[in-house]
């Protein structure tokens, strides 16, 4: 039902989010709204089918997914990744990467300080060498360290 609800909300947004062309409308076969409407309608119908299909067919409800239902603890790595991405602007990609590796390795149960330390320095170092030095790609330096790297 969540899928159907989201699809219906998006369908309601179509008129405001897809504007009709001002020029050249006669040269096209269908409106730019057509394909999003088709896709979202399909999603809404299929979402409803998934929700009420087993009941209509008088079958047992669909079994739990093989992977099991989402667990609340997954919010920890998701939160960590969000914090990692948010911190890049402030402290730069290299330092943020080191901190992210440390936190994730600890979160995943790695308690070997040497392994964590090596990973947290070698990986960001390699990224900096390969991307910033060799490939000349701009990597965010962070407002705190602007101009230093």
């Amino acid at each position: 039902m969540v899928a159907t609800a989201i699809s219906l909300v998006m369908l309601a947004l179509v008129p405001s989010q897809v504007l009709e062309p001002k020029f050249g409308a006669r040269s096209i076969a269908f409106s730019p709204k057509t394909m999003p409407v088709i896709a979202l309608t399909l999603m809404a119908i299929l979402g409803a089918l998934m929700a009420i299909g087993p009941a209509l067919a008088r079958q047992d409800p669909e079994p739990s997914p093989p992977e099991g239902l989402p667990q609340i603890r997954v919010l920890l790595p998701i939160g960590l990744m969000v914090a990692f991405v948010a911190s890049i602007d402030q402290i730069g990609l290299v330092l943020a990467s080191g901190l992210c590796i440390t936190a994730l390795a600890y979160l995943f149960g790695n308690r070997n300080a040497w392994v964590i330390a090596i990973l947290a320095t070698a990986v960001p170092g390699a990224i900096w060498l390969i991307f910033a030095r060799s490939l000349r790609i701009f990597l965010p330096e962070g407002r705190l360290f602007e101009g230093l790297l």
Partner: protein
Amino acid sequence: MLGVDHLLEGLALCLRADVIGMLALGMVLGVVVGALPGLTAAMAVAVLLPISFFVDPILSIPFLLAITKGAIFGGSIPAILINTPGTGAAAATVLDGYPLARQGKARKALEMALYSSVIGDTTSDVATIFLAGLFATAALLVGPPEYFGIFLFAFALISSVTGNSLTRGLFSAALGLFLGTIGLDPLIGVSRFGLGSVELSAGISFIALIIGLFALSELFLFAESVIFRRSGGDSTTVVSTRDAGNEPLRMHEFRACGRTIARSSALGTMIGIVPGIGQVVAAFLSYTLARRFSKHPEEFGKGSLEGVAAAETGNNAVNGSSLIPLLSFGVPGDVVTAVLFSAFLVNGLRPGPRLFEDHGAVVYAILFAMLVSNVLMLAFGFIALRYVALISRIPRQVVFPVVAVLCVVGAFALNNSMFDVQIMLFFGVLGYLLRKFDFPLAPMIITFILGPQFEASLGQSLIIGDGLSIFIERPLALAFIVLAAVAVIWGTQRRPGTIDSA
């Protein structure tokens, strides 16, 4: 168009030292990724795709192909040694590989897996070299209505055969189609679903989407399984080749599997040409046929070298021929070829019939490089067999934090855009949820990538034919539309399985 000069030029290009170097690097990375349970070929190519932005396509595309080939073979290593397929494609290898290891014949099983993988791959690559050009010539003769039919058929087939439920497969395809409409309309250039964001008005970055869906979601799934669980993670016992027998494969044992290898090579190659079916089906079909035609069917499941040969030949034989629909029609058949599609585009090469005309030498160089990578797989695999157990011992607690950082760098690198990183994060969470609720990801990826072309071909067809009647007047288009309907009906009859090309 398909001149000998293109072939010869391609052959010369693929033998360049830098190409061979990249192939070797890709092969090593692929085998390592494949040997680590939980890391997939799709994830590896998604994370390493950004490399293709900065190097020549002659280097980057063979590199990605070598990763895939290496990973598909590498998946057999933990399947044989620890009873856990490194990739989904190696699921059938477990059936006989692990019993062989327990009988003290691990080295025999690993060598059989290596040789049959190389033969399956090579057969498929040779077929691709000969057939891709012919298919491309045929593709030049078809117009927008036929392309619309082909796209529709590909969407229907992929939705029907991947995952455990047709409804979820179709939902995934519809979601991909919707996501593909975000950005500029392909017919007239109107912005759709920009939500007030300049970046979103340009559309969703495929790189960010695929890294999020495949690599980051995998990380979240892994995290969920280990956080707060001291016994979780990598507690598997690895059987080393020394412990499980070091006797090499004998020539008569290999010869006894000759027919099985030949049959599985042909079968895998044919399966690869059809979009969406993939390595898992090829491996299990080859295994089933091998058992049916074997002189010793009673040995299957208890430690049959023929079983290992069938599964490994079948899954590897898909690798080459899965490029035929991509190169000839511009239709990626699975997640890996969808990533390759993107790598081609980034390098200014649009997969499809014109590719052979405009960049014939490059295409043949890529195809010949696949053959070179098989030689490298044989050489590297032979040396590595003694040490492969060590690869399977690398804990994922070490690998996944590195993957997390590479996801962010990969999403950022193409456009130097933090917006793409945020999109990647969003799709990481979405991918996690979709996988938790058993939605296959392959239909979503394929419809996302082909959606704009699908819409354009429909629009062009309606203009050419002045209405829907054009799809009835053009027999080939009609045939594909009927086939699409048949695929959906077949999907409703299919028993739930574990087929997922991702």
